[in-house]
């Protein structure tokens, strides 16, 4: 009996914890993917797989993105990892759209002031993070420049 009343007393706290968990999940649920128009989703990256573009995108990433997503792009706190299957599974056009529009309600700023070519270079870099050999470019260079 006493155990049952303890459960009842804990119920509001449990519900609150569930709400926080749901809110935390919602911030990284990738719901932005549903908002990408088909025409944008279908766009192809003119620099996809090009080593120079990936390196240039990595430099821009270090300047502007690494502080939130980490130099290794593994994410920090509520800022999501860019190596996740969700991001790596997204189309180039979807990532490009996110860089242009941001997700302002959830803390991702718009990078529309970066020139379009530069945003494609960053897209190429982000997609390279899922591939071996290129993924550690920014982290390696960051360590080297930090020394």
């Amino acid at each position: 009996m006493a155990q049952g009343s303890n459960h009842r007393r804990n119920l509001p706290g449990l519900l609150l914890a569930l709400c926080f968990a749901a809110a935390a999940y919602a911030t990284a649920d990738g719901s932005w993917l549903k908002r990408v128009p088909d025409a944008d989703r279908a766009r192809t990256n003119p620099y996809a797989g090009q080593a120079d573009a990936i390196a240039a995108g990595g430099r821009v990433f270090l300047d502007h993105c690494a502080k939130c997503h980490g130099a290794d792009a593994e994410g920090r706190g509520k800022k999501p990892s860019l190596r996740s299957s969700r991001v790596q599974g997204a189309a180039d056009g979807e990532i490009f759209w996110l860089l242009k529009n941001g997700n302002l309600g959830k803390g991702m700023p718009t990078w529309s002031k970066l020139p379009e070519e530069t945003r494609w270079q960053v897209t190429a870099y982000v997609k390279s993070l899922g591939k071996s050999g290129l993924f550690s470019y920014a982290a390696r260079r960051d360590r080297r420049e930090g020394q």
Partner: protein
Amino acid sequence: MPGHTYPGIRSLLSRWLAATAFLSLCLASFCAGTVQAQEPPYLVTYSDALEEPGNLEIAVKGVEAAPKNANAFSGATLELEYGAKGWWTTEVYLSGQTTQNDSTVFTGFRWENRVRPLLRQHFINPLLYMEYEDVNRADRSFLEITGHHSISDLQLTNAEARKTVERSMELKLILSSDVKGWNFSENFIAEKNLASEPWEFGYALGMSRALASKASARLCFFCRQNFRAGGEIYGGLGDRYSFGWKQTSQYLGPTVSFDVPKGPTITFSPSFGLNANSAGVLYRFKVSYEIQQIFSHVHKGAN
């Protein structure tokens, strides 16, 4: 003390500016995440670029002029701009000026907030700007021009001018578009002195672009990608009883900014007066640092 004089370069403002620059440099060197902002090179016009959430931009904005019928002056404004949310930026301005053969005075403060009502990029991106100003008439910051502004107003001595403090609300509608690498921004300004003066109006228009659209894989100093260039036109539009651009000052000029790699952004613009109410040339500059995720530095420091 009103009327207390300091000649030219030895002015308090110079010391204040030097102290501000030193403080900025210290902060920048303390914070390894300091980078330049990707903002258009405007000194008066606002675009839809907001500060990234959690970032703090520290900027010193200066203006110098030697009008024909008034003493040469140098105005300086310290700006602290913080990205509160992805859609909301808040900023505080502290202004002062020094006038040749006169004195150096603190002229007041401003607090502004910019919010973005639409959360996605559109062909035209609107922003709403709300500002509270508490500045005296000795202000020479030229952050915007409204009403019937005239350079001859500057003939008043600082001691006289600073006796009148104007507290006002300023509203701006900011429209901004990015088309094929170009940014076009339009600001429509309405200002109301909280005393009994009528609504005053003004405008600012700017266009600019980065000199290179692709980033380089190499760290380079004088690369085109580090430069942005454009132009601005701005001026007053009178007040609600006499609307128009004739009895007020108007300026037009080119503007260029340089993102120093791993350093500040430096912006410069000579603004040329377009009528007799304007100064011949206003030399404007801005030096700004962006400190990324400022509170992460604070937390690190506390640990």
